[in-house]
C-alpha cells in the first residue's frame, strides 16, 4: 500500500521518479532519439539497405579533409575559449555581487546579438578598409592593408568571441560552488596562491572545464553562419557541407551519412576526453 509513497528519507519511489522524468524523456524521444534513428535509417536505407553513402564519404578525401578541418577548428576554439574564459570565470567567482553580474553581462553580450550582426561587426573591424587595417596603416606599421577577414584566423577569433560564454558560465558555476573554506583550508595548511590553485581550485573546477570545453567543442562543430561570413574558402566546415547536401542538393541520405559520421566522431572524442579527465570521479567529488 505504501510502496509508491515517498520512502526512506527523501528517496523517490520508482513511479514518482518516472512521472517526474517523463516530460523530459518524451521530449528527448520526440526531439532527439526519433530524429537520430530517422537520420541513421536514412543514411543506410535508400530504400533498400546500402552503405553507398558511407562508401562515398570514405572514398572521397574531401570529406575526411573537411571533417579533420572542422575538428581542428573546434579544437582550437575550445582551447582559445578555455585560455580566455578560465581567468574570466575565476575573476567572476571571486568578485560576486553586482561586479560579477557586470562581467557576466559583458561576456554574454555576444549571445544577445544575432550571428549575422556579430559576424558583420567582425567584417567591419577586420576588412581591408576596416578599423584594424586603418589603425595599422595610420601607425605606419603596414603599408598595404593586411588580409585579416575571410581567413582562418578571423574565423577562430570570431568563434572564440561568441562561444566564450559557454566556457565561462559552466566554469564559473563550478567555481562558485567550491566552498570558500577549501582554499582557506589549503592556505592554512601551508599552500601559497599558486599551490591553492594548482591543488585545490583547478582540480575541483575540472567538471566545469570539461562541461565548457565539451559544449564549446560541440557547438563549434555545428557552426554555419560565422564560417560563411568571416571565414575563408579553406574554412569550409562540416555543418556547411551537411547544409549544402540538405538544402541545395536535397540529398538527405548523404547528408544523414555525414551527420552520422560527425556524431560518431564526436561521441568517440567525448568518450576519450572523459577517460582522460576521469570525469566520473571528478563529478562525484564536486558534490
Amino acid at each position, binding site marked *: 500500500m505504501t510502496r509508491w509513497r515517498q520512502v526512506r528519507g527523501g528517496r523517490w519511489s520508482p513511479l514518482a521518479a518516472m512521472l517526474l522524468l517523463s516530460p523530459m524523456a518524451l521530449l528527448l524521444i520526440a526531439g532527439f532519439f526519433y530524429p537520430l534513428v530517422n537520420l541513421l535509417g536514412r543514411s543506410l536505407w535508400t530504400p533498400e539497405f546500402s552503405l553507398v553513402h558511407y562508401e562515398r564519404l570514405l572514398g*572521397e*578525401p*574531401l570529406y575526411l*579533409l*573537411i571533417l579533420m*578541418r572542422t575538428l581542428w577548428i573546434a579544437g582550437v576554439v575550445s582551447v582559445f575559449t578555455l585560455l580566455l574564459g578560465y581567468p574570466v570565470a575565476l575573476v567572476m567567482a571571486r568578485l560576486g555581487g553586482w561586479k560579477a553580474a557586470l562581467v557576466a553581462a559583458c561576456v554574454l553580450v555576444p549571445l544577445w546579438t544575432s550571428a549575422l550582426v556579430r559576424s*558583420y561587426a567582425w*567584417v*567591419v573591424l577586420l*576588412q*581591408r*578598409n576596416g578599423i584594424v587595417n586603418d589603425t595599422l596603416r595610420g601607425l605606419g606599421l603596414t603599408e598595404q592593408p593586411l*588580409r585579416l*577577414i*575571410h581567413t582562418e584566423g578571423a574565423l577562430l577569433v570570431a568563434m572564440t568571441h561568441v562561444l566564450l560564454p559557454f566556457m565561462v558560465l559552466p566554469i564559473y558555476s563550478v567555481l562558485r560552488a567550491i566552498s570558500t573554506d577549501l582554499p582557506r583550508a589549503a592556505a592554512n595548511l601551508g599552500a601559497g596562491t599558486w599551490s591553492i590553485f594548482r591543488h585545490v581550485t583547478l582540480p575541483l573546477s575540472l567538471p566545469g572545464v570539461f562541461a565548457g570545453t565539451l559544449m564549446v567543442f560541440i557547438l563549434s562543430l555545428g557552426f554555419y553562419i560565422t564560417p*560563411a*561570413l568571416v571565414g*575563408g*574558402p*579553406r574554412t*569550409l566546415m562540416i555543418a556547411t*557541407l551537411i*547544409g*549544402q547536401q*540538405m*538544402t*541545395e*542538393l*536535397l*540529398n*538527405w541520405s548523404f547528408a544523414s551519412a555525414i551527420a552520422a559520421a560527425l556524431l560518431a566522431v564526436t561521441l568517440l572524442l567525448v568518450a576519450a576526453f572523459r577517460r582522460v579527465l576521469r570525469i566520473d570521479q571528478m563529478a562525484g567529488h564536486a558534490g
Partner: protein
Amino acid sequence: MRSGCSAKREEREKLMHRRTLLSTAVALVAALTAGSAEAQTNLEKAKQAGQTEVVIAGGAGGYLEAVKKHFYDPFTAATGIKVTTVSAPYGEKATRLKAMHEVGKVEWDLVTLSLDFLNPAVTPFLRDLGNCADVPGVARNGVAGACLRHGVLFEIGGVPYAFSTKAFPAGKPQPKTWADFFDVKTYPGPRSLPNAGVPWWPIIAALQADGVPHDKLFPLDLDRAFKKLDTIKPNVTVWWRNGDQSQQVVRDGEVVMSMMYSGRALKLRSDGTPIDVIWPGAPIDAVFVGAAKDAPHPHAALAFIDFLMTRPEAHAAYANANFYDTSNKDALAQLSPADQRGRATHPDNLRTLVAIDRDWVSANRDKVIERWNKWLAQ
C-alpha cells in the same frame, strides 16, 4: 520620344531574343492559343471549392514588401482570396517542401525558387503543369517560354560582374569581359566570386575568360575551368555565400570586382555605389513560381498564377523597385530606355547571356559541387 513603329520593331526583336534565350533555358514553349477553351476559370473553381486562402512561400524583407504591394494585395482585392506568406531562403524552402511531402501534409500552395532548383531532386514535389493548359494566364500574358512545366517563370535576371569605377575610372582602361575579370595584371585588386551552392557560375565565367564562346560552354569542361580558376584564386579575397554579403564587399570597397546577382548590382548602383555592370557572358538567373503537389488550395494557387501574369504596369513598377525583369510580356516596354538597357532581357544584354543547360547540371550537380568544394578547400 520614340515612334510607335520603332517601338514595335524593338518589341519584336526583344521577343525574338527572348525566344532564343528561353528555348535553351526552358523545356517547352506553350502554345499561344490556349485560354479560351476552358469552361470555368481557376478563380471560379477556387470559389466553388471554397478555397479562400492561398499560402505562398516567397521571400522576406524588402523583397516581400514589394511582391505584396504589387501582386499579393491586388490579388486579394480582386478575388477576395487571402494570401498567407511564408519566408525562407530557397534551399530551406526546397527542404521543407520535401519534408512536408514525406510526412504527407503539404501546407503550401505556391513556392518561389530560383531556376536552379528546377531539377529532379525538387520537381517530384511540384505539380506537373504540362504545357500550362490549366493556367491560361501564362500563355495569354507571359513571355514566350514562361511555362516551365513544373512552374512558371516570374523574375529574370543574370549573374554579371560589377566593377568599381573608383578603382577603374572612365578614361582609363575599364574591364569589359570575363577575360578582364581574370586579368589581375591590367586590372589589379581583390575580387569576389560566389560560393553559394551554384559553382557553375564561376566555372562559366572562367571558361569564357579562357576563350570558350558563351554559347558553346556546355558540357562544361571542368578541368579547363579549374585550371583557369587556379590563376585567380589568390586574388579572390571573398567567396560570398549570400547576396547581402556580395553587396557589402562591393559597397565597402573590400573588392574591386565581384560576380553578383544583377538585381543586387543594379540596386547598389542606384543607391550611389560607383560601379558598372558587365553583362556579357553572365549566366542567366531566374525565379519561378511552382505549385506544390497535394497543396491545400490548388485552384486558388492556379488562380493566383493566372493573376500574376496580368497587369504589365504592376510588373514594370515591381521591376523598377526590384531591378529584375518579370515574365509579363508587355512589362519591359513600360520601362524607360535607360532602365531597359540595364536589364537582362534588353536585347543587347540578352544576346550575350549564358543559358544554363539544366539537363547537364542536373546530371552533374553532385560531381561539380564536390569538385568545387575540394578545389576551394585546397
